[in-house]
């Protein structure tokens, strides 16, 4: 692309580094910003700068937070003896949206995958073990994706925590709500039957 201005070119190049944004979309976004009032653009850029500068990671759970300790970890309503282990912040938001969980979280920041160069030391696992050692944890829920990397991570964390007196559980895997059995894939269905649960009303 040929640009009439160096400034325009720089802005487009920066935008096109974002995921899912190509050169053309970047140009459209930049030209849009150019047509907006200065205050709006100022707020926009300020929010990005502050995001990067001021955001912190909760020193207890590793979730994204404004303060040293996040709102969930400081909330008196939350059960501190119940910890839900998730891959990243998006999973915290997904579980929060259910309004069904009142424990606290622990955000790993990824899953173990040596192939992609991610080992346990790159993840927030050591602080989790420390947490289990120092605070009165009753139960740990492993809410990780049902992929091979998820399984590896679950297995590893289990090995690290199994000597502590807390209960270790994983989220149930099986037929989705509203899902019909005939359309379930074979692996899910086989597993649902193998790990069936007693029925009670």
């Amino acid at each position, binding site marked *: 692309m040929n640009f009439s201005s160096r400034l325009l070119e720089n802005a487009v190049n920066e935008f096109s580094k974002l995921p899912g944004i190509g050169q053309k979309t970047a140009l459209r976004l930049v030209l849009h910003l150019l047509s907006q009032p200065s205050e709006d653009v100022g707020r926009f850029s300020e929010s990005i700068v502050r995001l990067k500068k001021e955001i912190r990671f909760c020193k207890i759970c590793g979730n994204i937070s404004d303060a040293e300790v996040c709102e969930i970890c400081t909330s008196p309503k939350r059960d501190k003896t119940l910890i839900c282990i998730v891959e990243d912040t998006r999973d915290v938001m997904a579980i929060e949206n259910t309004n069904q969980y009142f424990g606290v979280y622990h955000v790993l920041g990824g899953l173990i995958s*040596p*192939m992609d160069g991610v080992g346990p*030391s790159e993840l927030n696992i050591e602080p989790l073990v420390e947490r289990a050692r120092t605070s009165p944890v009753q139960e740990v829920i492993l809410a990780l994706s049902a992929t*091979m990397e998820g*399984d590896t991570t679950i297995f*590893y964390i289990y*090995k690290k925590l199994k000597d502590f007196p807390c209960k270790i559980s994983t989220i149930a895997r099986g037929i989705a709500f509203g899902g019909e059995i005939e359309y379930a894939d*074979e692996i899910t269905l086989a597993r649902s039957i193998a790990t069936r649960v007693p029925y009670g009303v």
Partner: protein
Amino acid sequence: MWLEKLSLLNFKNYEEAELALSPSVNAFTGDNGAGKTNLLDAIHYLSLCKSYFNPIDSQQIKNACDFFMIQGVFDMDGSNEVISCSLKRNQKKQFRRNKKEYQRLADHIGLFPSVMISPNDVSIIIEGSEERRRFIDNVISQTDGHYLDELIIYNKNLLNRNALLKRIAERGQYDPELMEVIDDQMIASGEKIFEKRKAFMSVFIPVFEKHYKYLTEDAEQVELIYDSPLFHDEFAGLLKKSVERDRFLQRTTMGIHKDDLSFSVNGMPMKKFGSQGQQKSFLIALKLAQYSFLQLKKGYKPLLLLDDIFDKLDDKRIKKLMQMVSHDDFGQIFLTDTNRDRIEGIFEGIGVGLTIFEVRKGVVQNEETE
């Protein structure tokens, strides 16, 4: 199950061709480069969704054309099944059964099974163990849908373990717990694959021996042995024992990815001591055993594709082979040869319907000879 009709459009050297096939023996004769093998490959496409010879689909399109299309009409217990495969340049291959497109090609594989015997097969004997594992994997996955899934999981675990071994070497820190986690996952899928391969081999080897004996009239003793590190010890024990060596070499030295088949003739390795004719007989018996295995699992007869099979075999073995495949145990057969007289000579007196197609530079002529 048999193929009644085959039509080609812009496939390899064919601009357009349509063949009405016979349920017994179909022979394609013609000069080198006429397009005989391409006809077999087209049938292979309909059976297994890909070429037997070339993994790059777009190279099957006729020069200077934009697409190819293969269509076959199969007879399945009296009812017609229309299978078509088409590829436009730079687009995804489309596979249809009775005009309905498949979501997954894997759903089609195994429905119309086939076995190809071609001069290229010699790589199973002379190349590395990977070729032999590929052969086993191909046969098993055509009859067991879960096998391939398990294999994919195992290979991913293997990559993970090797990556971990490299990491350990680079950083100098060894986390035995993580290694154990990866090992456990590899053991679970590895043992399943081993059991499946073992069960397959126990059926496959006797059939192979029977075919070879018949084909060669006991002229030589051959042996086919399945070997795996897992025969010697449990997988978990093997991984534990080899961990020091694995860390040194930065790769996993034990597991089902080291499985191999050993072939021998009169007690000596086939690769070094087998003549070309013996090797060819061995491969034919191997492929016919694959045929019998598929038939056993499917309950019907696969298609048999014989590419240039008469080359390098003596007349006695050729006669034997043709008697054998023309028998009831084998269904529809397709074969290629450059020499029409030879084909007619071989089938004289065997008493099966032989249909010969003359192939000339991408044009097929159908001539009935009984």
